[in-house]
């Protein structure tokens, strides 16, 4: 199964012992915060789930955890997503 990473910015340590709070940018330019395990972070990127759909240069992706807004799937611009080997 193809794996993907998404650009993100770490904001702070998370509430849990191995967590971080990160921010990702949606296709509309808004930011979403989510709490993730630090194992999923590397060099400003977050390991994410599958790309579910594509539309006009944007991708619908599944986050590894629910964002603080309550969303788990979010549209992002394709330039923020990379496929990994």
């Amino acid at each position: 199964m193809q794996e993907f990473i998404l650009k993100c910015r770490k904001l702070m340590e998370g509430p849990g012992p191995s967590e971080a709070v990160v921010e990702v940018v949606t296709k509309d330019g808004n930011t979403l915060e989510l709490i993730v395990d630090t194992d999923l972070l590397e060099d400003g990127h977050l390991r994410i789930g599958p790309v579910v759909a594509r539309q006009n240069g944007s991708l619908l992706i599944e986050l590894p955890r629910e964002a603080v807004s309550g969303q788990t799937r979010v549209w992002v611009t394709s330039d923020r997503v990379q496929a990994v080997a």
Partner: protein
Amino acid sequence: MILTDREIRIALQEGNLKIDPTPDLGVAITSTAIDLTLSDSFKTWNALKGVQICPGRPGYKYSDLARTFQQDHKSPFILRPQQFVLAWTREKVSIPFKSRLAARVEGKSSLARLGISVHVTAPVIHAGFTGQIQLEMFNFGPHEVSLDGGMWVCQLVFEQTAGTPERGYEGMFSGQSSV
């Protein structure tokens, strides 16, 4: 379909489920679940009179909230009646997206009979999850209860999905460095 003890062991062996550190499977696995233990980290919320939290509104920032209102504690944590605390399992659980598994975290009767719950209506752990499982613990009982790191605190029940979740475009991006 709920996984039995045998199927949980197979999922662990085949990498469809990872638990680190691996608990003593001889005692942790039950006929249809696996028991997990409590870490020694706790967080409480300090309420500030007059401050409302609006998680459904644009611009809501958990990070602002956490910096202002969250307080750290270490084990043992004494959970008073009618008190709420965030806690985590000691074990880190990973369920790969490819696994076709999901899990539910549930409480244990040994704590439930004292009035201790371990989640606030958010028990589902989806495929793709990696991390120590957050427990939203509340004391409904009349006694102060000591929460000690390492104690058996919750159980995970695994379910196998009937099909494969949609992954419409994964093949299209195979081998590309950027999509």
